[in-house]
């Protein structure tokens, strides 16, 4: 009994922290319509700041707390609203969610950058050593504090929302934004207040929970997943329900921690489950939610465009990928090559997001987890490198993908995203860590307690055992998958997906079963991700659970969002950014740079929801498709450079630079021709300053001088060529960016 009481009290304290977190989350969601995935990361950042003030610089506790909670956190929230969130109105739910994921990534990267992760830091609980006796149980003061703070927050929020003018205005904004504007209230103010208060609550929770967990970025950030469950119980609307839900989850959590170890037979299997109790609650809550109403599309301020890819462009892209992979495989040094072989698996995982996220507009945060399942399938059932392993991977992932999507199908997009996040976390914390188990005569041991070995595939005519050959094999597989994705887009299924994204309500009135369609696309993209995982596993030859963690998956998704979720070119970009040592080679001193760049770019999404490729690169290379002569000449130059390298006439750098020049020239010349045409139509016919001949003759009847390129670049506002042609991978980036977009 005493034991039960102990767990109850600590469970209530845990629940209190969830309640504070979930309360802030719900407040910002209801007021501004933005579900803040970065809520936990904000709290984490606050905890680190508090550590710095109090432990790092020795400020008194109260001063440090006051500065963090009353000054910095609200300020950060208000700024976030002014600079980022305000601009998101009218963008799709997926874009909004991705912007907050970008903030999450940036915050984590920033913390890793500012506070050296190899140093141990702790925050001691408040009033350490002090206890009170309640019914014979010794309760630490810190738990009492937590509960008191949670109670204060609950009462405070209730007073704010029902008894104050600004609180009532906040609720009015939720109910009807345009109406609130008509009535003369400025939705700006409630929005800013919601963000300020929400961030403050995140900070409170972060500082309260930090002593319970270690002070390291990821556990604190992912704590948010537990709070989601509470918010979902409150249906992202009702604060009282959210608070009750949080307490229930807290209790369930601590009872599990307390009692599971006592149950000896199940203990090894359930010890990981303890960590996913809140996630399990989340799933149950999703199952119990009432069906959401079908919605039409919100009038988008910023149109999110998805141009239909042409077969010719896509085939050229695929060919360029294969050619690029051959060039890269023959020129990269063996160490770089080995660490780059995984890029193609990454690329296919990135491709798997295109039908689901790009076409259908459904957010999945678990694509990397499906890749993990694919890798496991290949390792266990692939035998000795049989290609059937990839087939099994695809089938298994499609099946599991459908099951994961099932509970969230009735609900709107945000819940599907949450279900996938919960699934990914459940894999990381529980399933992947399961010990060996036997079922009938088959014994299964998922990660064999550490790493799985995977053999490279047996192909009928060639051996792909060497890194070089496997790299090219990966390039071919990526090219094929990119064509598959294009085929989906161009076929009837793809049209249906876009229709569903644009207006679920209209789809329903045409007789389309949107649940079945969503299920189909979810399973399809899970299958593609599974194949990607299998190819990734073959590249590294051994895989471990950490490679497929939820958090790593966020970076891939984010990079795709930035590069463009509708373009295989975006997947190639992602593959090179995250799957090769490109960034670390270029900027060895800034390991966090990639993540921070991704984060910052993601934050800018509100302004440019189509991603970089659609907005920047595509317009630069599109005109080339209209001038086959230019394309041919450019390609000839590329091939020539490669042949020259093969014949040892020139070195690596010369080849890379030559290819870069040729690719840039294709773009410049084609666009020169294009503007020439437009110029002729309007009667003006002036050569850009510094050019030796009209652009249409350059490289064809007149020699192409560097001065011409420079002049063209200047007129067209391109960055100088040297920035593009850094190494072999850089060259493929340029070639990849141009047609697949």
């Amino acid at each position, binding site marked *: 009994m005493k034991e039960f009481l102990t767990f109850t009290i600590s469970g209530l304290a845990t629940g209190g922290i969830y309640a504070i977190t979930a309360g802030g989350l719900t407040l910002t969601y209801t007021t501004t319509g933005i579900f803040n995935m970065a809520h936990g990361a904000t709290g984490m950042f606050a905890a680190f700041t508090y550590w710095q003030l109090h432990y790092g610089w020795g400020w008194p506790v109260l001063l440090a707390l006051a500065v963090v909670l009353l000054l910095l956190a609200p300020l950060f929230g208000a700024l976030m609203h002014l600079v980022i969130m305000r601009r998101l109105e009218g963008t799709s739910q997926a874009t909004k969610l991705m912007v907050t994921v970008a903030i999450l990534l940036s915050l984590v990267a920033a913390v890793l950058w500012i506070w050296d992760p190899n140093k141990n830091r702790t925050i001691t609980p408040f009033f350490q050593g002090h206890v009170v006796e309640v019914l014979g149980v010794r309760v630490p003061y810190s738990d009492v504090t937590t509960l008191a703070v949670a109670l204060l927050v609950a009462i405070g929020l209730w007073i704010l929302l029902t008894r104050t003018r600004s609180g009532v205005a906040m609720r009015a904004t939720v109910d009807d934004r345009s109406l609130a504007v008509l009535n003369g209230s400025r939705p700006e103010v409630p929005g800013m207040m919601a963000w300020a208060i929400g961030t403050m609550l995140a900070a409170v929770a972060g500082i309260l929970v930090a002593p319970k967990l270690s002070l390291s970025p990821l556990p604190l950030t992912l704590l948010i997943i537990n709070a989601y469950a509470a918010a979902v119980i409150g249906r992202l609307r009702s604060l009282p329900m959210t608070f009750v839900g949080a307490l229930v989850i807290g209790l369930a959590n601590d009872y599990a921690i307390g009692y599971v170890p006592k149950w000896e037979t199940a203990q090894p299997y359930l010890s990981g489950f303890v960590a996913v109790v809140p996630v399990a609650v989340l799933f149950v809550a999703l199952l119990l939610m009432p069906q959401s*109403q*079908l919605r*039409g*599309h919100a*009038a*988008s301020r910023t*149109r*999110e*465009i*998805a141009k239909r890819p042409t077969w010719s462009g896509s085939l050229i892209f695929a060919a360029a990928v294969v050619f690029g992979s051959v060039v890269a495989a023959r020129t990269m040094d063996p160490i770089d090559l080995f660490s780059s072989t995984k890029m193609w698996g990454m690329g296919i995982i990135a491709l798997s997001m295109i039908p689901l996220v790009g076409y259908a507009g459904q957010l999945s945060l678990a694509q990397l987890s499906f890749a993990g399942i694919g890798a496991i399938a290949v390792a266990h059932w692939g035998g000795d490198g049989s290609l059937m392993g990839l087939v099994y991977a695809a089938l298994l992932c499609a099946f599991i993908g459908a099951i994961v999507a099932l509970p969230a199908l009735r609900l709107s997009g945000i819940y599907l995203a949450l279900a996938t996040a919960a699934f990914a976390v459940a894999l990381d914390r529980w399933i992947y860590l399961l010990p060996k188990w036997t079922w009938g005569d088959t014994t299964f041991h998922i990660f064999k307690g550490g790493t799985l070995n995977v053999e490279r595939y047996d192909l009928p005519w060639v051996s792909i055992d060497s890194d070089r050959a496997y790299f090219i094999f990966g390039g071919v597989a990526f090219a094929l998958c990119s064509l598959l994705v294009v085929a989906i887009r161009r076929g*009837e299924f793809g*049209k*249906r997906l*876009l*229709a569903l*994204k*644009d*207006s679920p*309500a*209209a*789809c*329903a*009135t*045409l*007789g*389309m*079963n*949107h649940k079945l369609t969503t299920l189909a696309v979810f399973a399809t993209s899970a299958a593609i991700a599974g194949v990607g995982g299998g190819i990734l596993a073959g590249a590294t030859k051994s895989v471990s659970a950490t490679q497929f963690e939820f958090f790593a998956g966020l970076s891939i998704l984010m990079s795709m969002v930035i590069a463009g979720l509708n373009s295989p070119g975006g997947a190639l970009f992602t593959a090179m950014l995250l799957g090769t040592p490109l960034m670390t080679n270029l900027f060895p001193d800034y390991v966090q740079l990639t993540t921070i760049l991704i984060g910052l770019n993601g934050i800018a999404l509100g302004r440019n929801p189509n991603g970089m490729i659609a907005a920047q690169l595509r317009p630069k290379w599109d005109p080339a498709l209209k001038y086959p002569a230019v394309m041919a000449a450019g390609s000839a130059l590329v091939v020539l450079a490669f042949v020259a390298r093969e014949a040892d006439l020139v070195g690596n750098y010369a080849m890379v630079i030559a290819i870069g020049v040729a690719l840039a020239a294709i773009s410049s010349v084609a666009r020169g021709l294009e503007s020439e045409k437009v110029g002729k139509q309007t009667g003006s016919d002036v050569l850009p300053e510094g050019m030796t001949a009209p652009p249409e003759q350059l490289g064809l009847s007149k020699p192409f001088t560097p001065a011409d390129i420079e002049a063209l670049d200047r007129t067209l506002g391109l960055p100088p060529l040297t920035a593009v042609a850094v190494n072999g991978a850089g060259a493929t980036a340029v070639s990849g960016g141009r047609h697949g977009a």
Partner: protein
Amino acid sequence: MGLEVRDVTVRFGGHTALDNISLRALNGQITGLIGPNGAGKTTMFNVITGLQAPHAGKVELDGRDISKLAPYKRARRGMARTFQRLELFGSLTVRENIHVAAAQFKRRHRTAERAAPTTEKLIERLNLGAIAEVRADSLPTGQGRMVELARSLACRPRVLLLDEPASGQDESETADFSRVLREVADEGVAVLLVEHDMDLVMSVCDELHVLDFGKKLAQGTCAQIQADPAVRAAYLGEVDDDLDPAVLADPDDALGVSR
């Protein structure tokens, strides 16, 4: 037979948007549903198509109760609609918009005709050839409404609900529209039309239902409605601008136009 709505009530919080409303749209006829802004016309459409669950009441299609069916199942029974606030598939072209609907129909009914010819026929019938390759979200409202009509016709509906199809259309578009509407009704479709353009309503409708603040104000032929003092006070009086005085003065002529 056709569409039959019985005693439907819808409340939003304390506000009763539809109060015990019944109406019927017969096959081969154009039934008008009119009333001032906020009368509950769109809400009625949402109830009929299943996008909004009523607090009470039933919807029947050809004598079968469909109140419990999901929206897509109602559509499969032959119900199609257009939307007051356009719900085009903005990232698809006009042709693709229609094709999606035609393919959807084709998948369920193993008709001999493939989706593509249906699409082409509709493009021709509604004069959309010039804009067939244009992305739907770049269309002006008037053309957008034509595309929504084409898309709903691609489902070969037995009941067609049109929510303010003429708003945003110019005169020639409206003329095209009423021609197609008449043709569709003559093919035996039950058409339910919500419209503020009284010229159009009076010229094409066979029967009218008038709503006001969620209550049924009147029901009858165009002539009866125009003569109804309550309707004139509540609604027609307000929209003098839309209304050709000649039509009001001589209701028979207005009816004559439609035949």
